[in-house]
């Protein structure tokens, strides 16, 4: 092969790569474009603050979905964060122990499990004994999804802390439990917060695990023991319906969901950069 031909291939290949990237970017553009344009036509203050209306009636919104999503996700956080953070601390502090190896495997398994299967599990564990769907079971399902993310990011952050930090505290006669609680955890705050924000963003977007746990509701429900609405469920139900009006609302709900998720992702990046404790 002549040199000029080889060079030509080289250039052509780069062009191919850029083209393929263009395809991916185009998909993204189409996706975001449709959601923002179609959704933008529907979302307004009324949409965000009013309740869904039956077919045929004007107006209606997704307030119950927003409230429900936030409620289930925050309860899920309350369940996942303490267990996740402290598990992560243990994994970072005692990496050789058998318990750590077992827990690391468990976290990997949990993270790899499809979210629909997590929904099945929580159905069997919570919905069946409770004899009914509930926001609480939805929160439990989401907490199982958030747990591995929080645990891993905590573990990684604590592992990266320089040992001189613990040394300095030991030398001041600080007992171990205070070293963990008053030195390690505060120093890991930005890493942990990043993990929490990312897991929250993921949980808010999940539909499958709450399909048969929280189940959804047309009402504004604040009681965790009852079935509860959530934004992804609203999108699903509106999308499945045959009514054009509801399809429009589905775009609107998708836009709201997408914006929330993007804001959380961006915030977590910002937290990671801004609050990073430099050593």
């Amino acid at each position, binding site marked *: 092969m002549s040199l000029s031909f080889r060079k030509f291939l080289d250039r052509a290949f780069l062009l191919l*790569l850029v083209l393929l990237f263009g395809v*991916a970017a185009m998909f*993204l553009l189409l996706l975001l474009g449709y959601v923002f344009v179609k959704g933008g036509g529907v979302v307004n203050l009324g949409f965000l603050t009013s309740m869904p209306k039956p077919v045929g009636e004007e107006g209606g919104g997704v307030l119950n979905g927003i409230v429900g999503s936030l409620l289930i996700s925050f309860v899920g956080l309350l369940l996942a964060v303490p267990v996740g953070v402290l598990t992560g601390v*243990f994994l970072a502090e005692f990496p050789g122990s058998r318990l*750590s190896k077992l827990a690391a495997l468990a976290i990997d398994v949990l993270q790899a499990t*499809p*979210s629909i299967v997590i929904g099945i599990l929580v159905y069997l564990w919570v919905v069946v004994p409770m004899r009914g769907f509930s926001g609480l079971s939805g929160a439990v399902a989401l907490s199982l999804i958030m747990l591995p993310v929080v645990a891993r990011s905590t573990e990684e952050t604590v592992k990266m802390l320089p040992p001189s930090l613990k040394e300095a505290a030991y030398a001041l006669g600080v*007992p171990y439990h205070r070293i963990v609680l008053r030195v390690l955890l505060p120093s890991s705050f930005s890493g942990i917060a990043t993990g929490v924000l990312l897991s929250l963003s993921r949980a808010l977007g999940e539909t499958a695990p709450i399909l048969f746990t929280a189940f959804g509701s047309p009402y504004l429900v604040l009681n965790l023991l009852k079935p509860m609405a959530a934004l992804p469920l609203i999108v699903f139900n509106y999308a499945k319906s045959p009514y054009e009006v509801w399809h429009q609302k589905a775009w609107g709900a998708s836009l709201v969901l997408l914006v929330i998720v993007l804001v959380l992702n961006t915030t977590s990046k910002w937290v990671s950069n801004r609050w990073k404790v430099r050593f």
Partner: protein
Amino acid sequence: MQTVETARADDDALTPPALKEGHSDWPSFKKFLGLFPLSTSMLVVGMALTLLVQSYVVFRELGHLFLVGTEWDPVYGSYGALPFLAGTLLTSVLALLLSLPLSMAMAILLGEYLRSGLFSSFLQGVLELLAGIPSIVYGFWGLMVLVPFVRVLQETVGAPTFGVSVMAASLLLAVMVTPYAASVGAEVLRLVPQDLKEAAYALGATRLEVLLGVSLPYARSGLFAGMMLSFGRALGETMAVTMVIGNANRLPTSVWEPASTMASVIANEFAEAVEEMHLLSLVALGFLLMVVTVAISLASKWIIQHLAGGEGR
């Protein structure tokens, strides 16, 4: 355990109060801390056991018919899951194949050509966005935009224009799983030792030749692991698939037909399953799905840890 000690209000000298004897708490706090990884582990063990036990009934009652039977009709009590196994496999394999050029291109761009700089951040941003979009949004968009497009394709090919089909699901999945293989691939390509590449450049190779001859072979196990990861993700994807695959509970004979996957049939039928056997069959499907997905994920993680970046060490 919290002993709040107050410094004695001496005039000048502030001395830390002496500790009580035998206060050293390292072993007991370690035990306390250990409760959390323990409960995490117990949780997951419990999860596996619960699903196994519930599925066992199905396997015992239906035997191998569950896996090879092609009739899934809850009304008549027949639960042959082959259509879903086939649908899952078909869509995931097709998705992987379709995503390969995209993810490899992104991986090579990020791992070799654009390792830093403005465009590199832009590329990473695109990948992160793609990965961050909730699957229900993908699904709805797929239903509204992709499905009509597939109908057009079907017209061109002369197939019945269902729109919702294996092809639609595979296309959508391909876009969704691209970020996973792309970022793993980019990472392992970045790990290719600079001096190996320089040796090739010094022999007069072009960039493409170094890529094909040195970087890609070096990183091949990591790239493979990235593909496995994508495949695993495709297997478990539920909402996006449900919306565009048509949910037909029969064995697909072509990619232009509607079908169902294990995940999509669970999503569709679980909440309304009245018959106990129906419910348990869905649970059994979920159990199978979990086993396969977890196995693939663990295997690809193992490959990344032990083989990728370690070639020739």
